[in-house]
């Protein structure tokens, strides 16, 4: 079903998350939300606003500053039949809970031999800009994608945010849901109904025949702006948004590159040993010598985040970096 008849209206990314949570909680009383400050008016950047009033403190719970326990609590609650959504105001704060994630959550289903599910959704928000600095802006989504037994979404649009979050909440496999803070005010047309976007299905955000840009998370709008600029020079760029990095829709990516024969991957994570490497490697394994140019990664430099605004400008790649790289690939 493609929801074509359903009502769509513009909604911001932040509000779409709020709507996904509200509808999930309406649809099923087992859905609960745990996180520091989720029950205040401002909520977590607005994404949890109104939930406590609507569903009561029993289902929307402020949590102590105990991130490791928060994940573990969600796991035990899931085991006992609830569907918890855990919220971290920053990805960085989630690092305290990596033991719970990597030593327990990811392997639970496997080691139970498929007898025991843990439908846990973990939301992690990635800070960017305004001097967040090295402890408030990391995105280690590549780490999570490396873990078996876990799904990882990194939506770029409001409609995907809602659909992927609802899919996480109502599926049996745990998922980490990575939100780019810089995307929160951006709007797209979002269906009113509850719906899912399935994990592992990339979307082509723009078609083109000269080069493929695979763009992750908040690099998607940047890639689209670069593509628009390049079109003015007659370069047709195809922009693929994987939407989830685990599972990763390698088929869609490879099909696009098979057509364009050129690949640029842009990821809002560190360059080395990141998601971009996996995508470049996969394409190299599939398409090997068929490429017309060497593949390129445009990511964050292998450096922690600097605070100063002038350094942030150097640090975060913008559309010009993508344009330059594509121009070089197509040798114009």
């Amino acid at each position, binding site marked *: *079903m493609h929801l074509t008849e359903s009502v769509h209206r513009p909604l911001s990314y932040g509000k779409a998350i709020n709507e996904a949570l509200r509808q999930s909680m309406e649809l099923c009383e087992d859905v609960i939300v745990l996180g520091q400050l989720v029950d205040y008016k401002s909520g977590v950047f607005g994404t949890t606003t109104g939930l406590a009033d609507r569903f009561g403190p029993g289902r929307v719970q402020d949590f102590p500053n105990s991130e*490791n326990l928060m994940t573990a*609590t969600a796991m035990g609650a899931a*085991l006992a039949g609830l569907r918890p959504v855990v919220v971290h105001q920053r990805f960085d704060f989630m690092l305290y809970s990596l033991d719970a994630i990597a030593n327990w959550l990811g392997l639970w*289903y496997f080691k139970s031999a498929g007898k025991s599910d843990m439908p846990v959704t973990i939301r992690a928000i990635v800070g960017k800009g305004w001097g967040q600095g090295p402890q408030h802006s990391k995105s280690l989504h590549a780490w999570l994608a490396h873990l078996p037994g876990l799904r990882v979404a990194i939506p770029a649009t409001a409609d995907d945010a809602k659909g992927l979050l609802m899919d996480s909440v109502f599926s049996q496999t745990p998922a980490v849901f990575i939100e780019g803070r810089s995307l929160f005010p951006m709007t797209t047309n979002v269906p009113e109904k509850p719906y899912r976007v399935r994990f592992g299905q990339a979307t082509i955000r723009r078609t083109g025949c000269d080069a493929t840009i695979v763009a992750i998370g908040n690099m998607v709008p940047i890639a689209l702006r670069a593509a628009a600029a390049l079109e003015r020079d007659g370069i047709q760029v195809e922009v693929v948004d994987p939407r989830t990095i685990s599972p990763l829709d390698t088929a869609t990516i490879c099909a696009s590159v098979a057509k364009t024969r050129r690949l640029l991957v842009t990821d809002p994570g560190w360059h080395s040993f990141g998601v971009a490497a996996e995508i470049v490697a996969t394409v190299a394994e599939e398409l090997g010598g068929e490429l017309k140019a060497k593949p390129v990664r445009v990511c964050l430099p292998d450096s922690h985040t600097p605070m100063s605004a002038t350094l942030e400008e150097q640090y975060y790649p913008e559309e010009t970096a993508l344009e330059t790289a594509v121009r070089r690939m197509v040798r114009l």
Partner: protein
Amino acid sequence: MNSSTVPPEPMGLELNHKTILGLGRYQALDIDGMQAETLAGLLRQMLRLRRTEEAILHEYHPADEIRCPVHFCIGQEAMPAALSLLVEAEDYLFSHHRTHGYYFAKGAPMREFFAEIYGRVTGANQGRAGSMDISHEASRFYGGAILSGSIGIAVGAAYALQHRHSRQISIAGFGEGATEEGAFWEAVNYAGLRRLPILFLCENNRYSVYSDQTKRQASDNICERVATFGVRARRIFGNDAALTHRTLQLEMEAMREGGGPALVEAYTYRWNSHVGPEDDSDNEYRTVEEIAFWRQNCPIRLLEEKLTAAGRFDSVRRENLESEIAAEIAENFKFAKSSPFPHIDDWRTANWNPASPLADRLLETLTESEFDQYQAEAKLAPY
């Protein structure tokens, strides 16, 4: 609940691993007012666990078919035995690496236990988990080998039970060593804050592998520390199965009535190496006297002698019990050894559940996704 009904300190002692050694032969075991059935059950469960452990111990290296690390619990049978008589099928039980006692306490089947440690497809986890990580979903039993890690999950189960106003409880079993993990104190704080129905069972056997508790903690006072977090805590001589039973019973009944979280610290001792059937005493971490003390105060012997003296047990019953247990063990060994080995065809689906029945029922699927690339990016509040 009146805490005075359980004498927390035998013979007026302030209980810890030093004072205990001064007890000599433990004399305080008290079976007055306990039901015959309970006492028989305690003895039976302890003996069954002991014989099972011994059987594995002897089989381990010679046969070389159990190919996973095994942490034996010989000497620590009282707690699991007491628990086995009190825990309900719908309660949740989580264990640390020393799983065997807890597995049996939860009533999970011996067949699937043996098959699991033999790495067979008929095992509780189809041979994927082994001794340290064994779980049995149908029995609501879950093991795991990262110190303190399963305690937080137990808190989560308690959260869900409270959320649903259930009378069931969640139980976490672990050693004194696990309390050094920060994860433990996060769990204790939250349990105390929310008054969750969680029972923390700390079997204090003095050592973390070879390391003495007071080499790792300022003092042997876990109960005192836990109590300040709003969690009821009491310590007992953990080789007294009757006392252990009475203590757990009181705590569990109170908890089912909304009495909030509790910790029971049971002083006990493992007889064997930390892991495996070898002898780890060449690391010179414990004295001959200490070992002798605890062997003398074997939980099975203490209860058996008391029962015998009271005329409630005798050599005939002992023989019947022994042969019944021996038969059960032999049969399950046979089952395990004759079971096929597992094979995994698709590693991916072994790690992920592809089904999503709830999502299928509740959600429609959106395939297209749109985007207006001309939006100016993000003008956000600054934090």
